[in-house]
């Protein structure tokens, strides 16, 4: 876990990630895409820097996107949006072979209506969310908003049309921007609660309920049905961003999941609505948003043993030893200064220094300052970081032999850049941008209690997991 006092959080993406009601982020041809209300959407080359460029016809509101086979199914709501508060909405779906508008294959099929509301009934057909059930391949779509029920309908995964004869099922009330996901025998219904579209005052937040059946009932952690307003918090405002809404789940691999959303207002960006990408954690069978990594100085602790990553240098003793017994306990106590970098740095070699793991003693050779390197780009949900000994330029680097070393000064080469992903259990994966002369996707591991190295990631092994502790 990242245990520290939060002084600043990079909670949204860089570039111009301005969007409202984003679809679940999806990868196509090595790029990432999300579409929002209105027309168009955002594209990212690396998942960290986002700019406009996505193309989605039909306008309307709050789309969702799902890859089925080699095609992309896009659902969106063409809301009535009447001045008097009309609630006659329609949900449409359409296909495309690619999401890249520059591709010769880029062509949307004609949109078809799969659900609607008549403006009177207890439902407003907007805000679709798609789920392809991994257990049986059936395709489901939830939709609706605060005006009545959230409904579930079944679509044909081959055509994207409504399954003939399918009747909608009410599955929740008093939320909007719903979507569904499946994990370990549970179906999860995510909904957005609170006040939308009020900038810094928006109270939007994302809640969840779960069910053993896709059709519900979706109950929260205290057993309340989402048809009675139930819902367990997944993420609310924090840092300098308010109003997370429109959940989307992205599974990058076992143990590595992200969630996309928008924040109603990023107070560091004129209070505009921006794209958010955060780690998605699972605690006791419930999804909860993790926190994006916070720059700072940390102990890097192995989950395996609890030892700390450190320079392989001579241990320099602090003055004094055990104070002994039979002293006068009435003597005034006084603080003992911590060991400082200047107390020890002259004992360190000036060239490359190996790293190892050891008992954490809050000594200078164990304190790592981790800072983003803006010019190095990033990955889905984060920038690349440099990891240096506090107060120095001495940087952690990957070596060609799947090992680790520190170099005297950070130079920005790929083996000195690190990707940090919070895992679904709350621990972290630390991964070099590249390993010299290798195409292997290695991560930082601790094959022995005291020995760090690089190896393939295995979510089932604590050897591959780390915590950042601020003391």
């Amino acid at each position, binding site marked *: 876990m990242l245990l520290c006092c939060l002084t600043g959080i990079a909670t949204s993406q860089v570039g111009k990630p301005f969007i409202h009601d984003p679809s679940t982020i999806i990868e196509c041809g090595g790029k990432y895409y999300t579409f929002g*209300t*209105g*027309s168009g959407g955002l594209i990212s080359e690396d998942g960290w820097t986002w700019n406009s460029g996505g193309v989605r*016809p039909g*306008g*309307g*509101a709050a789309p969702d996107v799902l890859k089925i086979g080699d095609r992309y199914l896009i659902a969106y709501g*063409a*809301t*009535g*949006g*009447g*001045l008097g*508060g*009309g*609630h*006659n909405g*329609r949900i449409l779906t359409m296909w495309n072979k690619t999401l890249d508008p520059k591709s010769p294959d880029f062509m949307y099929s004609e949109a078809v*209506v*799969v*659900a*609607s*509301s*008549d*403006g009177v*009934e207890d*439902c*407003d057909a907007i805000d679709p969310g798609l789920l392809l059930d991994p257990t049986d391949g059936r395709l489901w779509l939830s939709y609706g*908003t*605060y*005006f*009545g*029920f959230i409904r579930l*309908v079944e679509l044909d995964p081959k055509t994207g049309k*409504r399954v003939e*004869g*399918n*009747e909608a*099922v*009410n599955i929740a009330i*008093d*939320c*909007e921007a719903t979507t569904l996901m499946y994990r370990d025998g549970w179906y999860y219904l995510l909904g957005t*609660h*609170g*006040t*939308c*579209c*009020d900038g810094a005052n928006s*109270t939007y937040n994302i809640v969840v309920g779960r069910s053993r*059946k896709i*059709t*519900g*009932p979706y109950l929260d952690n205290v057993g*309340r049905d989402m*048809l*009675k*307003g*139930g*819902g367990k918090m997944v993420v609310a405002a924090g840092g300098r961003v308010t109003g997370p809404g429109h959940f989307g789940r992205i599974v990058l691999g076992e143990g590595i999941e992200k969630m996309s959303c928008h924040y109603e207002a990023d107070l560091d960006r004129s209070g505009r609505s921006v794209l958010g990408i955060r780690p998605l954690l699972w605690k006791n069978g419930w999804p909860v948003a993790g926190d994006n990594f916070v720059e700072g100085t940390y102990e890097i602790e192995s989950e395996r043993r609890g030892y700390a990553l450190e320079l392989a240098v001579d241990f320099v003793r602090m003055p004094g030893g055990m104070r002994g017994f039979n002293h006068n306990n009435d003597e005034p106590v006084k603080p003992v200064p911590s060991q400082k970098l200047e107390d020890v740095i002259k004992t360190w070699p000036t060239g490359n220094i190996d790293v190892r793991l050891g008992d954490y003693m809050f000594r200078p050779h164990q304190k790592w300052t981790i800072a983003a390197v803006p010019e190095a780009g990033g990955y889905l949900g984060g920038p690349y970081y440099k990891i240096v000994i506090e107060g120095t330029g001495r940087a952690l680097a990957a070596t060609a032999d799947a090992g680790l070393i520190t170099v005297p000064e950070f130079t920005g080469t790929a083996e000195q850049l690190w990707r940090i992903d919070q895992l679904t259990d709350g621990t972290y994966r630390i991964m070099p941008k590249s390993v010299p002369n290798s195409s292997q996707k290695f991560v930082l591991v601790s094959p022995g209690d005291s020995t760090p190295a690089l190896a393939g990631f295995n979510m089932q092994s604590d050897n591959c997991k780390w915590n950042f502790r601020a003391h």
Partner: protein
Amino acid sequence: MNMRRQIYLLAISFLICGGPGLQGYSATSGSNVDGKVKSDTARSLEGYFTPAASSAKRPDPEGFIQRWLLLEPISKPNRSNTVFTDSYIRKAFETEYFPGQFTVFPKDRQKVKAGTQELMWHSLDSKDFNVKLYRFAYGLGKETYGVLFWTATIVNSTRELRNVRMAVGSNSASMWWLNGKEAVILSGDRRMVMDDCVSKSFTLNRGKNVIRGAIINGPGMSDFCVRFLDEKGQPVKDLTISYE
């Protein structure tokens, strides 16, 4: 629907170019995919309410009280529900809109004068666990947005019940009184969530206990749900509900 979102969607709309009963709730018109707007001329309470019968009514299996006297909505224009701060709703609910508002228990079909509005009380049984005020107003052809609802009911207990809490959810803000004392206040732009706010522990009298409630709403749906919880958090169901 959140009206701010409605306005937001309206703004973008100008840019636009373009197995039943699986659970307890089955959408009745969910198969509609033609996108047509239904005529709203045939309004009624049917589907959401039935006239309250003279026979005793118990809470539903989860303890929710479904029998209420509802006053037709008092006009109280608000373009947004975000104005419902604690101070705002206290002032709004402490204002006397009609004579005997806090002292006289209303009767079915009784009319009151609230400003220039002549409004009628209706004794109704909700078909749902919650009371859908939007549908009450809509069904009567009254204003649905920018309104204030008053409601009352009588809870009868055959014995004194100690350490009981009143649990309320409402859309939007509301305030509730039990036997003349303030019990629960729900401020802000609220959605109706069961057991959203609960009162402090109190004693439910043997015999009659009077609940009054006031719910205010700007745009969007409006509803409420009320039940009593015992000291273990379990619903109190050994009650009868009446409207006189």
